[in-house]
């Protein structure tokens, strides 16, 4: 038997091994040894991350059910790193509130992570569906992890209902696609797609599952309530790791499978982006609760990420991956600070941040950096990620869309500044007293801090991501899918070309077309 197929799956296999070790350890280790469960889990997880960092080449296994590319591997590394940060932030919380259930927390989280790995690496719609289900169902348990807390239970119910609906619709879409094309393999489908109404309907319905995961408007209604009710650490996980998986999967599937139907899905994404960014921004302004606030902020951030999908170029993929990396540091820092403050003062109101700088300067500075990075202010990394993802969209001629997105960054700057204002400017007679956070949270915060400050200015991160993304597109022969070429030859519309020739610019003589025209 040829084991090379298994070796390619080392990311997944190492994760499964990790899950099993932790599960068995939690079950059989003596009470004394259970004390070191969390440090051990984090340590092993670091090993797993190192394994995902090993270079891979693009390959398919199991007859095309599973496929991997350098970009997919990078996405997995990012998701693992995000999860590790979440674990570091959760250590104290687990210890205090849920010591008995510590094994469950790690087991469930890592299971969803495994599901997300499969979402990113699937080569077949059923494989993908298994991944998305594996990533959803344990998540609902995590959302309602604080069983005694009414809000958490409510959030769990909301999440599972919404997720079930989204999966159902998605599955319906898959069945339509199967009916329309006769195959579920990613590699076989493009040839069979002619863009008939049935296929378009199947595609859009299928995408619902992903839009739901990314909580794009109009699939967002669960977001704020779930983020608010769920334990803060779980919200952080939802907002970063879950979105990364969905964004990368969205890109892969839309380019690889539906690349030929770009003319049909681009207008859809165009509208979804505008809606997500604008509406979420307007909602975020009025929020009084930091978790709801971050929920709406994450919806609008997801909108920016989809710009990379619309661009549909190697630069777009780079943009998505890089944006996720930068967003991970900033958003996890924000959620981390939020969880610490929440534990300290017992509520998640933004008002509790008033005057925080006087008593807890480090936390405030980290929070401020996170806000600036999310708002896209240099020299923080968020500026670079925004610039590059906008550049990738402008490269394809989406001027108006980018203009709308840019104007929205101003609205978002307003509400991010409100947090900064609360911490630095608002007077408060009795600010939250000075407190020391546990060492695990501090490690995580230091990592986030350096991530926010360095991952932009140090160009290594972007350039490396770009190399990997370009390589993956080329290796999969995705740089110019056959079906796309045919559509283009038949119907050469400027601005709707899938321009993927490395750094080739858009046609300079083109005016500013938009897909809506």
């Amino acid at each position, binding site marked *: 038997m040829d084991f090379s197929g298994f070796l390619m799956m080392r990311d997944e296999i190492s994760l499964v091994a990790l899950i099993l070790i932790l599960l068995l350890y939690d079950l059989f280790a003596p009470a004394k040894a259970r004390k070191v469960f969390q440090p051990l889990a984090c340590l092993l997880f670091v090993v797993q991350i190192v394994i995902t960092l090993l270079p891979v080449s693009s390959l398919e296994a199991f007859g095309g059910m599973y496929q991997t590319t350098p970009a997919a591997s990078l996405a997995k590394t990012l998701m693992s790193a995000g999860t590790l940060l979440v674990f570091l932030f959760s250590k104290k919380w687990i210890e205090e509130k849920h010591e008995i259930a510590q094994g469950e927390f790690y087991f469930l989280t890592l299971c969803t992570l495994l599901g997300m790995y499969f979402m990113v690496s699937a080569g077949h719609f059923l494989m993908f569906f298994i991944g998305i289900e594996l990533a959803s169902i344990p998540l609902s348990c995590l959302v309602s992890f604080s069983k005694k807390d009414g809000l958490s239970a409510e959030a769990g119910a909301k999440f599972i209902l919404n997720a079930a609906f989204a999966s159902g619709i998605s599955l319906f879409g898959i069945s339509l696609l199967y009916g329309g094309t006769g195959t579920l393999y990613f590699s076989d489908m493009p040839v069979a797609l002619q863009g008939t109404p049935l296929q378009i309907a199947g595609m859009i319905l299928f995408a619902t599952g992903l839009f739901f995961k990314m909580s794009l408007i109009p699939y967002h209604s669960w977001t704020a309530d779930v983020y608010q009710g769920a334990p803060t650490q779980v919200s952080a996980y939802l907002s970063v790791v879950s979105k990364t998986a969905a964004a990368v999967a969205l890109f892969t599937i839309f380019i690889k499978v539906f690349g030929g139907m770009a003319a049909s899905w681009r207008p859809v994404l165009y509208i979804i982006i505008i809606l997500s960014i604008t509406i979420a921004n307007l909602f975020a302004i009025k929020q009084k609760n930091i978790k709801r606030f971050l929920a709406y902020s994450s919806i609008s951030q997801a909108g920016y990420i989809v710009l990379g999908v619309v661009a549909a170029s190697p630069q777009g993929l780079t943009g998505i991956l890089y944006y996720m990396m930068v967003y991970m540091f900033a958003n996890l820092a924000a959620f981390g600070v939020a969880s610490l403050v929440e534990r300290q003062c017992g509520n998640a109101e933004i008002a509790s941040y008033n005057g925080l700088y006087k008593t807890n300067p480090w936390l405030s500075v980290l929070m401020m950096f996170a806000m600036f990075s999310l708002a896209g202010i240099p020299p923080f990394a968020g500026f670079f990620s925004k610039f590059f993802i906008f*550049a990738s969209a*402008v490269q394809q001629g989406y001027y108006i869309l980018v203009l709308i997105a840019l104007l929205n960054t*101003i609205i978002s*700057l307003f509400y991010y*500044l409100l947090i*900064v*204002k609360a911490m630095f400017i608002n007077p408060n007679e009795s600010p939250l007293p000075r407190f020391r956070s546990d060492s695990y949270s501090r490690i995580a915060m230091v990592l986030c801090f350096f991530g926010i400050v360095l991952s932009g200015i140090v160009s290594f991160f972007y350039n490396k991501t770009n190399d990997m993304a370009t390589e993956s597109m080329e290796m999969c022969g995705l740089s110019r899918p056959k079906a796309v070429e045919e559509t283009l030859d038949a119907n050469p519309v400027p601005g709707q070309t899938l321009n993927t020739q490395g750094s080739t610019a858009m046609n300079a003589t083109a*005016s500013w077309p938009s897909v809506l025209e």
Partner: protein
Amino acid sequence: MNLLSIFVVIPVLMLAGLFLSRTRQQARVISATGASLLLVAAVVLGVLFAAERHAGNTAEMLFTASAQWFPAWNIGYSVGVDGISVLMILLSAIIVFTGIFTSWNIDPLPKEYFMWFCLLSTGVFGFFISLDLFTMFMFYEVALIPMYLLIGVWGSGKKEYAAMKLTLMLMAGSALLMLGILGIYFGSGATSMNIMEIAQSSIPMALQKFFFPLTFIGFGVLGALFPFHTWSPDGHASAPTAVSMLHAGVLMKLGGYGCFRVAMFLMPEAANELAWIFLILTGISVVYGAFSACVQKDLKYINAYSSVSHCGLVLFALLMMNTTAMTGAIMQMLSHGLMTALFFALIGMIYGRTHTRDIREMGGLMKIMPFLGVAYVIAGLASLGLPGLSGFVAEMNVFVGSFQHSDTFHRVLTLIAVTSIVITAVYILRVIGKILYGPVQNQAHLKLTDAVWFERLPVVVLIIAIASIGLYPGWIAEWIHQALAPIVESLTVAAL
């Protein structure tokens, strides 16, 4: 290391030093040392630049260096200066230096204050040395964001409102700018983000027409272009003294500098075609700003509106697109930068003593604090364009250059703009007459004292700079001429 990078490295080192500092005294010493080093470096740069030019080096940009940064988008860290940039760096160094001394007794949180101040300076210097669109834009935004906290925490009056308004308006400008930059990059054929290289290729007219207004307005917001100037009075009035100085003195120049270096230089055809719209807007800025200053009662508001008027004149002159007027524009930038910094410094010092900025509550200050009084008169005279001071040279060039256009439109606009000189005299002399020579309004003011050393130092430095431009403008004009030559040429070629 490249000579120019020093201007970014010093503020960054200052930031690090301030971060480690423990006491107010340490923070002061570090800031003062750093600012002095910057000033020395700027003077050295000026001398070296003059020497190079004297030696016959006619390259457009001197001391260039570049390093790849993000090769996927052809982004590099490329620096270089021409005569105008050198002058702007000198101006910034002077104002940062004087600003540090003006905020000697800042309270509360001196360390944080100086740190933000340094970050702001990093952005300003980085902007003026950059030749790469992306790097330039990045530094531009780095210079903007510290304003929020500088005004919000250390400001006065309705500071929260002013800080938010200023930040959002300027960032909205920079949002337009970001799209403009991307448009320029892709429109030019996308082989480089370096301004000098983009200038070699031409951007299609259809794209220019779309991106020129974006870029010009983007920078224009910071240059107080009507109707996007409204952040300026509120922002300046609420900001602490040194921040007003730096903001009106240097930051608003970033707008003007960007307008001609990026918008007009890279898109000359659209600049020629659309100049009339912006000429009208800037003409309104000039006159409207001056009239508004006449009716204000708060010293800072008077000066803020006066800044709108003067900065409007900068953009107005740039849009006239001939060498004389544009030379005048650059001189007006320098002149206004120094003069307005002097004004804000003096207003800060007066306010620190009288605790009011309302001109109705002050009088007879000339006798009480003669040093500040005389300095105020000098600043005022420079502002209304008295020969021998910097304002005269600048305005003379601007209006002579503008009137060189033979068509009615430009001449009428020039005539309208010229009236601002008279209006300026009205509001300047009104204030001087009232608060310096008028009857004493408040007996408590009689006990006030005159300036102390750390207040006199910046005032003297600024007055010397103003007078030296006014008395000996020749060398500056020469540098500016040389630097403007390629820009004017591309504009003239495009007009044909």
